[in-house]
């Protein structure tokens, strides 16, 4: 017997304006988000690969991640990340007027 319980994702489904159902929607949206992050945030992948234990298997992953990071940076795709990061660091460094 199932308990009636309240879940945050219990939301009435609306008639969809597109043909995609839930499965196709999750595949498309998660896939696109992953590709976008690979392009705009390859730095994070390179950082992650840098933390892997060195070995013959990880050497390939490391080289691929570093290569992707360099190629995306060369095309300026890391600019949004760098701009946001600089803004955030300015916020972190900000102090009260009388403390400066």
């Amino acid at each position, binding site marked *: *017997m*199932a*308990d009636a*319980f*309240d*879940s*945050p*994702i*219990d*939301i*009435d*489904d*609306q008639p*969809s*304006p*597109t043909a*995609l*159902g*839930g*499965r*196709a*929607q*999750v*595949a*498309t*949206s*998660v*896939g*696109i*988000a*992953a*590709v*976008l*992050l690979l392009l*705009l*945030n390859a730095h*994070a*992948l390179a950082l*992650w690969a840098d933390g892997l234990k060195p070995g013959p298997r990880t050497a390939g992953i490391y080289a691929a991640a570093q290569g992707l990071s360099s190629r995306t940076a060369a095309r300026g795709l890391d600019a*949004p*990340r760098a701009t*946001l*990061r600089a803004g*955030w660091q300015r*916020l*972190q460094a*900000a*102090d*009260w007027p009388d*403390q400066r």
Partner: protein
Amino acid sequence: MLFPTLDFALFFLPVLVLVWTVGQASNEWRKIILLLASWIFYGAWDWRFVALLIASAAINWSLAQRVHARAEAGESVQPWLGLGVAANLAILGFFKYFGFFLAELAPILTAAGFGRDLPLIEIILPVGISFFTFQGMSYLIDIARRQTQPASFLDLTLLMSFFPHLVAGPIVRASHLVPQFAAVPRLTRTMVSASLILIVWGLFKKAVIASELATGLVDTAFRDPAALSGLDLLAGAYGYAVQIYCDFSAYSDMAVGIAGLMGYRFPRNFDQPYRAASLQDFWRRWHISLSSWLRDYLYISLGGNRGGVWFVCRNLMLTMLLGGFWHGAKWTFLIWGGLHGLVLAIERLWREWRPSAAPFLPRPLAILFIFHIVLAGWIFFRADTLAGALAYFAEMAAMRPGITLTTPLMAGLIGLGMAIHFAPPALLPVLARRVAAWPAPLTGIAVGLAILAIDTMRGDGIAAFIYYQF
């Protein structure tokens, strides 16, 4: 393997693909995939304890079979139920409390001449043990109370191992999840959009607000309160109230979202707890799956609301003391639980004997008052030792002038965390419906950009969730 890491993303994406491809054709294979994935998830922390997880599920499943058979035959279930509860408590007690009791008993045993015989062993606490043993116990008790049907071994093992809730809840009961395992779930567009929003929202709360407050303010304030001003310590206390809410509710949000993307519904675990106008109300809004567990399996078993008012107060106090001890083998958690028990008992006595002419406290003032009771409790909860907690109160009361630790960003994050907490409950459904109407590629771009923004704001590395230690 923490949710807000690339390790987890690289683990979860293939699992998601498998459950909606192989797992779409066969529900049994879907469950096997989820079970194996859950063991890999848990094994990434320590492989040895996967065996403990399986053993715990096997014990609960086999004892529940006996309890059910006896209940069906009209015989007493107490012997098998008692054995099952004792087995769960023994597992929890050994890993979580053995060291504490040994340390507390050591002076007495040493004085009695048994000091050199003390078994000095360092016990590693398996992540999430408090959660999966409570799940096992609730399953057994529900079977004995005939509130749920016996689950197959696969279903029960999956229930207890399911990776979204495995290490820090919500405590999902058999009656919540096992019926959902009966068939391949149907995934709707609003489920997907709500799940994605919860994951991104949780990432933001954890990686930006909770982590930044922890490293920039709270950890320093609690490490050396004597070196800080009164305002910094006050900000540290408020900061911790926001940090623990953002940290734990973030985990719950992400757990609900991750399960939701695979088609499963988890119960709500938070409902604006700092809006509570009484402590009883607070416990209906904070860590709802634990408070309802304590109510259903401990408070009611102790007698609940039956008997006189003093008996009810005793039950409240015992429930909260044990609830505090559930969080960890430390005096600070016992004091925290005791404080909540005491205030709950006072509320109960006040309701019983309140003079009819006594005025009611206006709701905003009641909310403010209860928030500060909760805040005082958080200082005990956060401090490493009882002496540390008392020193924090003393140094805060000293109100030394100046402000050195609380930067505008920290003050802003406390304000933002509170604002997020007070966001209207209807916001998620409204957003989820709106996002569900978007074309999926647009949703993907929005999710990708949101994660990018969060990743730029997070510090290097990420601290474990506070509730991982429980």
